[in-house]
């Protein structure tokens, strides 16, 4: 019996004609158009899946990459972001029903940070809405949204195009980012104010936006034009200290800027299975981005009810005692009653503070802000210790610099 199977097998190829081994597919992910450059620069070889694409967590070293964001310039590949083009006569009306803020107030050549909700007012996702023209928008977001967009567009005279796989994006962030663009011959961005958007060259749209709270730009182009632009920036950046970065460094910067991240600081409602895990924009602290006066939008009635009845939770920025990052720490009132947890916590390298985003059960973090504590576990040479550190609720961003707003930006 043991000898028979070999007869039925296809004959093995002779070793002399052996085919070349198949090119390895790293972690089964799709390379973005910038992957050849990232691959070449990467010493860490640390990749993560982002919407099916291969994305670096670290290219070389987190500290170098983080400090480049604040002191030089950095390139982060944002191509895996989901991008939906909305065009047609009803585009503004349709989007105004979709998102909580008033789209009519986002002019042509502007970008708006928007949130959108389900019928119960729970946030589906947040993102940036680009207005190219009167009837031409792009929504950039973290979550896959095509089904929802098609549902939201039903009955309106609009076309929805999923550009996620055809448009590439580079986030150029840092104090010298303007200098690099200028050196690359893209000085047209000089007049761009924060959240401005312009087509500086045919097919190249640049917005003064980013996820770092610093001076920075996002560059959007067709996939085919991606590598050429990368090389152009890289060549122009010789004297300006450009570094490719991964997600980890960016995450430090975004927490310093006080920006929330989907699936981290809130759970996108369409991805949750358990009841009550969604959060409303009011609970996430975005009252100013909810325009109850603009007419109907998805979830408006539910949000009005919640505004009248009171919020369940408050997502706030906090500063903590000590220096141990408090990610995931439980929060207490009067050191005894558990009232919340940290959703994103880091030691902030620039502000030299222990900072975090935290979710409290109302009214803690809202009306009650005194006598709040975080429980931190400390490990020292095999011994665990539990410490309660004081918590202070913050208002503005932890990191804020005038260069982020100055127009035209200085040459650093």
């Amino acid at each position: 019996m043991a000898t028979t199977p070999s007869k039925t097998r296809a004959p093995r190829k002779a070793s002399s004609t052996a085919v070349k081994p198949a090119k390895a597919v790293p972690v089964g992910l799709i390379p973005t158009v910038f992957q050849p450059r990232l691959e070449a620069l990467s010493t860490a070889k640390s990749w993560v899946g982002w919407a099916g694409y291969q994305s670096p967590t670290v290219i070389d070293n987190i500290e170098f990459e983080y400090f480049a964001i604040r002191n030089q310039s950095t390139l982060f590949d944002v191509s895996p972001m989901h991008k939906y083009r909305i065009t047609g006569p009803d585009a503004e009306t349709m989007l105004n029903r979709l998102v909580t803020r008033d789209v009519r107030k986002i002019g042509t050549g502007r970008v708006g940070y928007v949130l959108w909700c389900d019928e119960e007012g729970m946030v589906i996702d947040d993102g940036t809405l680009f207005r190219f023209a009167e009837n031409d928008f792009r929504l950039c977001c973290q979550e896959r949204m095509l089904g929802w967009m098609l549902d939201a567009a039903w009955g309106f005279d609009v076309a929805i195009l999923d550009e996620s796989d055809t448009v590439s994006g580079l986030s150029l962030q840092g104090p010298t980012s303007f200098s690099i663009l200028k050196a690359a011959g893209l000085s047209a961005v000089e007049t761009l104010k924060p959240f401005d958007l312009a087509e500086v060259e045919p097919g190249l749209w640049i917005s003064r936006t980013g996820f770092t709270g610093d001076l920075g730009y996002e560059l959007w182009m067709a996939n085919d034009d991606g590598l050429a632009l990368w090389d152009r920036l890289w060549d122009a950046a010789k004297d300006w200290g450009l570094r490719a970065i991964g997600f980890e460094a960016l995450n430090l910067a975004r927490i310093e800027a006080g920006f929330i991240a989907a699936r981290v600081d809130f759970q996108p409602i369409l991805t949750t299975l358990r009841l009550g895990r969604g959060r409303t924009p009011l609970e996430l602290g975005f009252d100013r981005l909810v325009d109850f006066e603009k007419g109907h939008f998805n979830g408006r009635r539910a949000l009005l009810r919640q505004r009248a009845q009171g919020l369940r939770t408050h997502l706030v920025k906090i500063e903590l005692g000590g220096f141990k990052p408090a990610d995931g720490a439980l929060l207490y009132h009067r050191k005894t009653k558990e009232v919340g947890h940290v959703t994103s916590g880091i030691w902030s390298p620039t502000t030299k503070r222990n900072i975090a985003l935290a979710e409290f059960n109302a009214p803690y973090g809202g009306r009650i802000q005194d006598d709040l504590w975080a429980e931190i576990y400390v490990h020292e040479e095999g011994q665990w210790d539990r410490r309660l550190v004081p918590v202070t609720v913050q208002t503005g961003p932890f990191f804020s610099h005038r260069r982020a707003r100055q127009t035209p930006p200085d040459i650093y």
Partner: protein
Amino acid sequence: MEQRSTNTNFDAIVIGGGHNGLAAAATLARKGKRVCVLERASTLGGMMAAEAVTDGVDAAPTPPRLAHLLYNLNPKVERELGLRVQAEPLTTVSLSPTSQHVQIDGSRALNMDGSAHAQATAFSTLHDRLTRYAGLLSRLAVQSPPKLEGAWSDPDTFSELLSLGRLGLGIRGMGKREMREFLRVLLTNVHDLMVDELGDGPLAGAMSADAVRGAFSGPKAPGTLFSLLYRLGNGRGKVLAPVGGMGAVVQAFEDAATRAGCVIKCEQGVARVLVENDRVQGVELTNGERLNAKAVLSSLGPMATIDLAGLAQFDVETVRRSRKMRAKGSVAKLNMVLSALPVFSGLPTALHGARLLLAPSSTYVERAFNPVKYGESSQDPCLELFFPNAKQSDQPQALSALVSFVPHTPAGGEWTTETRDRVIQRVVETLEPLAPGIKSLVQQAELLTPADIEAETGSPGGHWHHGEMGIDQILNVRPINGMAHYSCGVAGLYLCGASAHPGGDITGAPGRNSALQALKDGAL
């Protein structure tokens, strides 16, 4: 100027003068509200409106245009509105191709010679049981479905729990064995129960046909027993022929509304429901005129109502559910004029005026349903026939027939004269062996397909019940999740047609309940 303002300002406007629209209007007006009913057509009544057109035949009798019988009028609606409907109970005959017809009088099953049918005892037991179950469930029909959203201490929630508790007690009160049986059969299919209890023949066929008439499902589909219980809900299984025809029923509803002080306007189509600040302001008519009102109650289905108020006023989910609501009509109405009363073999002359069913077995009904899934009409259709003038047996006759199953839109395109004629021809050919010579008696025939019914009455999909009465579309999820309490989101906008709870048939309950909910909400 003063005169004008009183003519255009109302507390409530009801869109659609079908029986539910009129019931809603009358209920509101009886509470002292100024109500205006707007009907697009020239006559009231919706699906039981007016007579079929029979031009060209002198002194021809006129079959009822759509609905032809009454069996589920809600007694509470009848009492509250003071409806004056006179009707006579009608015998049902389930026709058999072998002339072994069965006469059904309530829970009695008889052979044509008057002797008890072989399954008479089983049928009587089953019928009594089903009407008892139906009676229990019909309690749910006269109030908004329970929300159970609030805390126990919330008065609304408490009263909902109380009424559910009473239903529970009612079920328990039947005794352990009956309660078990109730729970066993409630969600089951009608075919299995009928065949188990009665064997498959004209009796089972009649019950199955009654269960699925108007539905987009065959008797083997789950939940079809529930639709039978719904049908049995108010009349203990009795079928009534209104004296003076369906027109008299329309008149009774119209009288109730007029007596209560409603303004009724026909030939007034609504172009838009006006909304400002998420609140209804009134309507704009197709002639451009504006009528103001604090509340608008729409007899239309959810999607048509949403379209009138503007899509952007509603949540994405609401629109999605509305457009995906299951509402595929499956019944066509065939109105015929015959030169004389046909003679059905083996059927006594006196029974020619009965409700005649052609559903010789439950399997026959299931097979009749199959083609409609593919956009085709039944080769061997299920029929409900009624000769309103059978008593004048020497006169030319009107034949009113409900033909199951006929698709809303035939596979491959729109209805044409040819495809309509083919359905008519199939019906006549199906009847010919039962009533030899009927073919030669036909003087005139008009087929109203579900598409025609939709165009004429606004019923979603031309569906007999304004939306499938499936388990997924009743009670808290009728017509769709989120609209079960008649409110459509926009303050002051309500659904009052058969697409709303409890559902179809000439009950008047959706209209009445909707009006009461609007009053309870303080919408007007």
